[in-house]
Structures are given as C-alpha cells and as structure tokens.
C-alpha cells in the first residue's frame, strides 16, 4: 500500500519560490498563468498495511515530520497499486 502526501504552504503564507516560478513563466510568454504555489510530494511505501492503517500512519507521519503545521497543510491519498 502506498500513501501519497502532498504538502503545501498555507494560503496566508507568502511563497517566494512559487512567485519566482510564476514570473519565469510570464517571461516565457505564459501570461495566462495567474499564480503558482510550490509544494512537496512524498510517496510512502507502507508495505502490507490496510487502507485504514495506511491513512492513519501517513497522516501521523505527515503531521509530525513531513509538514510544518505553522506554515504548511497537507493531504493524504492512497495508491493501491503495490
């Protein structure tokens, strides 16, 4: 069972990297890109865990380590293909 964790900066937090990327896209001619926010993606291989256990474990790991709750929020998705 694989869990995917997506970590993003909270909307109220300024994202200098995302902003830089948006500016770069604009200079490449992609003026229709209104904004870019950069986040992180983690894939956790949780072995033979059940979906419920995998979700619980991934959530705990995300909350404790993968995301900084002061500035980031996260979501967990399960990927059932082994």
């Amino acid at each position, binding site marked *: 069972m694989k869990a995917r964790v997506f970590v993003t900066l909270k909307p*109220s*937090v*300024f994202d*200098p*990297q995302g902003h830089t990327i948006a500016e770069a896209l604009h200079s490449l001619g992609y003026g229709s890109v209104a904004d870019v926010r950069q986040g992180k993606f983690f894939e956790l291989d949780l072995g033979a865990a059940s979906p419920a256990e995998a979700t619980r474990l991934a959530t705990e790991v995300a909350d404790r*380590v*993968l995301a*900084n709750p*002061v*500035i980031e929020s996260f979501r967990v998705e399960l990927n059932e293909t082994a």
Partner: protein
Amino acid sequence: MKFAVVVFPGSNGDHDAYYAPTHVLGEQAEFIWHKDTSLRGADVVLLPGGFSHGDYLRTGAIARFSPIMPAVKAFADAGGPVLGICNGFQILLECGLLPGAMLRNRDVKFHCEFVGVRVDRTDTPFTAAAREGQVLRLPIAHGEGNYYAPPDVLDELERNGRVVFRYANAAGETTDQANPNGSLHNIAGICSAGRNVVGMMPHPERACELAVGSADGLVVLQSVVQALAKRGALHASA
C-alpha cells in the same frame, strides 16, 4: 563556566561557536555530538549554524529529533540559557522551543553579507551587556531567514517584548531596505516566554574580532558570561 556546542551532521558553524567563547573570551567549551544524550554539566548551550542534515525536508526539521534534543529541552525548561544561531534558530523553531517558522528569503537568494542588527531587548541572558537600541554589524549567511509567525503569535511576541533583534540600518531604523530576507517586522531574533532561549539568524560568533570585519558580536557572548556570573553558574544535570 562551560559552553556546550551541539554538533549535528552538517553543522558548519560549530568551530566558530567554539572559538569565540574559548579563544576570545577565555571560557571553556565542549563539542557535544547530536547523538549524545547528556549536556555534561554545561552552563550555556549553543546550537550553531550550518546545514544540519543538508537542510533536507526543511531546515532543522530532522535535527529536532536528534537524541540530544530532550536534554536541550530539559535544560531550557529549567531556565538554562540556550542560543540558537542561524540553523540553530531554525532547529529551535522546528522543535517548538521558539514559536514561528522560517521561509525562504523573499528574493529567493542566499544572502551572505554584513547587516545592521538592532538590539531591542536587553533583558535576556544574551543581550544583558548590550544597550537597548544598539546597532550591531553582524554577518548573515542564509537562504531561509524569512521569519514568519501567524498574526496572533506575532502579536503576542511584540506585546511581551520577545523580539530581541531586528534588522536595521546604521541609524537604527527598521526599514524595508535594511531587511535582507523579508522577515515579518524585520525580526532577526526572538526569545522564549521564559526569555532564556534566544534564536537569531545573524552570526555573533563570527564577529568577535576586528580582524574578521566586526567585533560587534562579542557582546552577545559577553552578556551570557556576565548573566551567569551574576546568577552563579547553573549546572543542568542531564
């Protein structure tokens, strides 16, 4: 009195943090490896600058789980003076000994330069020998020094005088131009509620001798020596 300099894999400011109190101030210091669990009777704990764990995941995010950190936390909870410099500040933020978080510098550039740092509070062990309003010329070297805290936390810090250092120009004005990284309220350093834990992004330990360009940082270390001499040496058993 003895300074403990905690060394994490990737710390590179540990030798500067060792040199300043020993060679310049004549005090004792000892390196403590991050996997140790005892601070060995240290009177002051320094968390040095560098790139612990390569800054992987987030700056300080992995170092906060090091085996030495419970001892550091116990020392801090007992009132012992702890100074986190640069990456050390980031580690204190990640482990919750100080509130808030660091973001990437607003211009997404690594800043390695001298800046003006105004001392706003002299009621911490690390600023006791400084003058309120004094502007120190200190070097910074960081890519993520953009201090952030949610509005209610920021308000509390300001209300309780927990902003110890701010980026300022030579005249002591906290202008936007004097702010190298976009830190909210030009914050360069803060302290805990108990005031004994201080985190700062600039490097006082790299400005203790005129030969390196500034000796303005010496007052930070002199302060804690003075504060402890007044208090009587505090031995934290671990």
